[in-house]
């Protein structure tokens, strides 16, 4: 079912469905097998305006919100979760910038972001700082008008292809987590290089790289917000981006069903289409119901988010303030619990649906000629990135504990 509530959302669904069928589908198997980034698809995304969906018209975007972004990510991931990451990870890298950027910084970065001329990526994870992001060791020490950055990030999606990296660094290591800040570091800055390229289970067309910073001098104008508030921006970013991962998971689940149901209808064993065996049909019914439940959860949340996000963006542009500050004026609360719920439920659903679909279709689905094994490999990442399912549970129980404590119950 479509959850579009306005023309822009409906056309986002229509456009991304056409794009996925016409452009992603013919490329997905080849790019997955080659483990190569698709420049051709990047160009198609750019031409069809995929990078600017959620950005204001002022910068050449469409003025859609978190819902449009999530809908696009769902429909693209429904066909190929790997190729979908070109606009997906650009949004992830750019959301913290867009939330914390001053009016001047927005002017500097948002035009090329919305047009897709420049790709963005988000660099938080380090070898010793995965689920525990506060343990990050990359430092950025002030030297006049510059920060001097040293450290290593790893498992960075769209690495090497992206032009701008929103990097979590510690600008005041003596303060620990309270010293964490966000810097925008441009590819090509002296001392910034790429290390190992990872070989992955799924989403293989998207390049995952190690980033190495050796005395990289970053102008202080590239600091997002103020020093020491990096973790706050990261959390706020994840609040907005996790429904996107949840939407991707819904897309993967739906895509797996799209491959499975026609096969079960036409595959005959024991003299009848195997979908007519109730054991199989009932399983499909359960999987479809869970997928729809996930979709309903995602868009219920994003629609509520947009009621605050879009007015905050509008106010920030009018007042020359940051989106983060305008959001605080409007609300002050956080979406963490609901974002985590959406990601937890949808990621687990995607994994279950993809796994069960492979079983339902049997031997053919285990073969690479049939697209289902790829859905199973791709589904797994949604349980891991942007916080594992366990971290999502931490977020949920932490929020619930606070809520009930506040009520004195």
């Amino acid at each position, binding site marked *: 079912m479509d959850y579009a509530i306005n*023309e*822009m959302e409906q*056309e*986002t669904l*229509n*456009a991304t469905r*056409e*794009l996925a069928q*016409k*452009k992603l589908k013919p490329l997905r198997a080849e790019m997955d097998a080659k483990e190569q980034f698709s420049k051709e698809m990047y160009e*198609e995304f750019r*031409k*069809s*305006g995929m990078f600017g*969906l959620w950005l204001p018209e002022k910068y050449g975007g*469409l003025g*859609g919100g978190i819902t*449009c972004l999530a809908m696009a990510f769902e429909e693209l991931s429904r066909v190929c979760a790997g190729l979908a990451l070109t606009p997906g990870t650009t949004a992830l890298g750019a959301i913290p910038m867009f939330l914390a950027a001053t009016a001047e910084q927005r002017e500097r970065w948002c035009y090329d972001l919305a047009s897709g001329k420049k790709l963005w990526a988000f660099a938080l994870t380090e070898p010793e700082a995965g689920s525990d992001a506060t343990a990050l060791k990359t430092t950025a020490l002030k030297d006049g008008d510059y920060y001097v950055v040293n450290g290593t990030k790893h498992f960075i999606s769209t690495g090497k292809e992206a032009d701008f990296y929103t990097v979590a660094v510690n600008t005041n290591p003596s303060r620990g987590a309270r010293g964490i800040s966000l810097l925008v570091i441009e590819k090509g800055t002296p001392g910034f290089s790429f290390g190992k390229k990872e070989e992955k289970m799924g989403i293989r067309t998207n390049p995952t790289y190690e980033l190495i910073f050796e005395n990289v001098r970053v102008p202080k104008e590239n600091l997002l917000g103020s020093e020491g508030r990096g973790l706050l921006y990261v959390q706020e970013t994840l609040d907005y981006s996790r429904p996107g991962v949840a939407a991707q998971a819904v897309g993967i689940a739906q895509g797996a069903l799209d491959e499975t149901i026609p096969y079960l209808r036409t595959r005959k064993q024991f003299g009848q289409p195997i979908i007519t065996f109730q054991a199989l049909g009932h399983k499909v019914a359960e999987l479809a119901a869970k997928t729809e439940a996930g979709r309903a959860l995602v868009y219920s949340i994003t629609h509520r988010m947009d009621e605050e996000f879009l007015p905050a963006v509008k106010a920030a542009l009018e007042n020359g303030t940051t989106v983060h500050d305008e959001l605080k004026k409007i609300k002050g609360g956080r979406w963490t619990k609901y974002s985590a719920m959406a990601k937890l439920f949808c990621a687990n659903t995607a994994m279950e649906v993809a796994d069960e679909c492979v079983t339902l279709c049997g031997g053919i689905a285990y073969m690479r000629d049939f697209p289902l094994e790829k859905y199973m490999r791709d589904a797994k990442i949604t349980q891991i990135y942007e916080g594992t399912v366990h971290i999502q549970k931490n977020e949920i129980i932490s929020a619930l504990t606070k809520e009930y404590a506040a009520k004195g119950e």
Partner: protein
Amino acid sequence: MHILACVKQTPKSDNVKIDPATGCLIRSGAESAMNPFDEYALEEAVTLKEQLGGTVSVITMGPPAAENVLRDSIARGADKVYQLGDMAFAGSDTWSTSYALSKGVEKINSLEKVDLIICGKQTNDSDTGHIGPQISAWLGIPNAAFVRRVVQAGDKSIVVERLTEDGTEVLELPYPCVISVVKEISNPRVRSVKGRMAAKRAEVTKWTADDIGADKTKLGVKNCPTRVVKSFAPKRDANAVVVEGANGKEKAAKLVELLKENKYI
């Protein structure tokens, strides 16, 4: 740079049915879409606009429903769209159609000077390939057909590579000029969200034969110099004769003999 793409609404090519009795296309009830070759033409126009700046206008001639291909053109990146619609145009052959289009081009040119006209190489419903070259003839401007690549588009002229029967040619054409393009020219994009929304709101300029100052004695089924006498599926004939010979000269002589023998010449 003002680029004008010519497009036509034709039956969707994945859904064409032929009446077995008449051998003609069954048009009624068939789903329509932009002629596929025109998609390549429009995409090239939009790509050139993105590189050089300017405007892409689109013109079509056709019944009221042909407005759909103009809205589709907006969704694919066009800026302005014009429709020639008049009962006087009904049943026009390529000579009449290209005349009407050339009058439409003149009118558009009077509003904003046209530099480059791009057509698809042919349509999927009549396959003639006449329209592009004929428009250039009516307007008295240069033309290149079967263009597969724009080598360079400058301020005053365009350099193109066109397919010929035995290879390719590179031609430079001063503006204004007409090129008709083959599918290798471009890779049509998917309609963007922004384009789709703009398409619904776009204003379609509609002109009659009088609006473009067309001479009605050159229009419509009654005034066409050509007419379709009969449509039929060609009979398959397996009695082909292969002329053997040591060289081309000998083969040609034998072929002439053969044609004389059978009274073809």
